[in-house]
């Protein structure tokens, strides 16, 4: 059985732990053996995005110490994976030994849907969901990692599910970490547009692969359209799978 190391983003750990549980179940169903390093904390994205490079470096080194020897590292987030894959080597560029370790780790880090489809070669996880689903192309999943066909393949393979198109599906939802809190005027207008497009798509459910977007779109829906749902792909596939059983 393929051993795979789970990297749980801090947003998932603290606020959305069910996504982590769903990932465990999915990986097992796909024939892998998920392991979890108890020493993990945060990838350092908040620090880097706010300009605190020195502090972000500490997170990077901690991460590399912990995950550096793993054959494959998987996370249910495009931005956290992008941080490790793209920003760690850049961040540690002035320390040759650390740079080498970061660069060697980078190709072994995967976003969840990417790992399921590209590495494990699984797109049908045996799930059933009767309804129409729209997919939000999160910025760091789509443009950061080039991942788009993989989640769509997983959704399309769910029995009874119809993947419908959504206008401006590749537009940012307005999260951007600190941005959402510091620039509420702009961020709210962006998430309003995203939700408008979701409603107009006629879908019963919105699926995405990024916890940040989930907090943003979900937070807006909870306040204004509590009847509409947004779910992480992992939760969707795991839940649809359980209903089947």
């Amino acid at each position: 059985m393929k051993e795979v190391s789970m990297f749980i983003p801090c947003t998932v750990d603290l606020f959305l732990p069910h996504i982590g549980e769903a990932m465990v179940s999915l990986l097992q169903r796909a024939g892998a053996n998920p392991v979890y390093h108890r020493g993990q904390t945060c990838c350092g994205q908040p620090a880097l995005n706010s300009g605190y490079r020195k502090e972000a470096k500490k997170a990077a080194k901690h991460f590399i110490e912990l995950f550096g020897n793993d054959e494959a590292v998987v996370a249910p987030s495009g931005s956290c994976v992008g941080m490790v894959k793209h920003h760690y080597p850049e961040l540690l560029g002035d320390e040759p030994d650390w740079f080498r370790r970061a660069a060697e780790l980078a190709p072994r880090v995967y976003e969840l849907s990417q790992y399921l489809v590209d590495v494990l070669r699984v797109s049908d996880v045996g799930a059933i969901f009767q309804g129409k689903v729209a997919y939000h192309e999160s910025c760091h999943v789509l443009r950061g990692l080039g991942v788009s066909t993989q989640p769509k393949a997983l959704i399309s393979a769910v029995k009874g599910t119809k993947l419908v198109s959504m206008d401006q599906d590749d537009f940012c939802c307005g999260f951007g970490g600190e941005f959402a809190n510091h620039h509420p005027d702009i961020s709210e207008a962006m998430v309003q547009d995203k939700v408008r497009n979701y409603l107009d798509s006629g879908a019963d459910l919105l699926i995405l692969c990024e916890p940040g977007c989930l907090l943003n779109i979900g937070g807006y829906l909870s306040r204004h359209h509590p009847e509409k749902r947004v779910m992480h792909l992992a939760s969707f596939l795991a839940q649809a799978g359980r209903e089947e059983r």
Partner: protein
Amino acid sequence: MRVSTEQFTELAGQGVEKARARPSLKMVPHFLYQKREAGLATLPDAAAAQACGAAIRSEALSRLPDLLEEFEKNAIANGAKVFWARTAEEASEYIVKLAKERGAKYVIKGKSMVTEEIGLNGCLSEHGIEPWEGDLGEFIIQMLRCPPFHIIAPAINIAVETIRDLFMARADMKEPTVDPVELGWAARLFLREKFHRAEFGVTGLNMAVAETGTIINLENEGNIRFAKSSPRTQVSVMTLEKVLPTMKDALHVMRLLSRNCSGQKISAYVSMDSGPKKDGEIDGPEELVIVIVDNGRSRIYQDPRAREALRCIRCAACLNICPVYRQIGGYAYGWVYSGPMGQVLMPLLLGLDKTQELYRACTLCGACKSVCPAGIDHPSLMLYYRSLDVSADIPAAHRFGGKKRPWKEALFFKAWSTAVERFWMWNSGISMVRPLMNRGSHRGVIRRMKGAFSGWFRKRDFPAMAKETFHERWEKIRNIW
């Protein structure tokens, strides 16, 4: 032009309100974006063409001093005069002095961003020389005294009724109309007179070719060609980074500029000038003066990281795709440039201390980077500027003047970074924060919070912190499955 980059947040809020009142404002960038998609599709391999553009711009910048000298030498050999201006003031004052010496009563202008940057119109007016903008959009905003809303479509936000009233009052229009063709005709008649009698023309330029000393302009209205060929004296203003090594490079950048800008394979007018009118030629200016403006660029050039911002060819593809620009429009950015290209360029030109909101008001979505024909990585540049605010010990922070962050934030990240490499401290921190965070939660949802996070909670909820984190659940999960 007044600089109001420090009022970004307030102006952005106004921009959002305006866009809400007039949904058509959001349509324009989207329309241009779709045109661009179609335009790029006419290339056999659009991605390769874009990458080639990035390579050309990058190489040109790495050889900037040599290329500028080569361009100057060849331009002079062609019969042009070259003036180097260190600052915006030096450039404007030189042009005013020249216009006075040539006895010009007014100046006819072709659309240009650099003359906005150096504040030329204001300087000319102060000295009693009237500037007339020859581009329709610039003509409108000049009379309205507005800044450009969009770098290639400066008056795109102005309601047609406003333009009708403006033309009735100021441009000798006979009958009130909102018909765009009629309005265009009225402006044309009015400006044609100015062009005919012009003694002195001022334009910007898109490219300066080092190997031939040629200056190139792309446009769709003909005002630049007119301003370059009709007057006796013609002044072309350029900033340092406009120079390209060869004509072949220029032709490729031209293919990309037209397509990325408006989706055209080639703009309606392209003019290439190598020097003034020569003996035996029937038209063209008798005198061609090229003003090369630094205005902070040589300082940017010194920093290999920041230099990337100078690759920009002003196609505006990044504005049209930017989800923030689409919400707030061009005024919020507070100066000449707007959208992502403005967010990466203006902090270097004006100083980080005056523009901090510009490079922080970004979700790092990367849409700009994905369309840029010059290969600019806008999000990374903004992260770089943000880091200069924090680390005052980097030489570049002195060069561009970072602005200190709030002490509470600095303290938070200090504590954060101590815990991030010690998981036991990290997890006990979480246990301590949880009751505070969840104080006001109801059925697992937090609906309001005062203080530092109030921005989020104006229109959004947030899940309460889980009773058990994933970390705490792990042992149990392992037993279930």
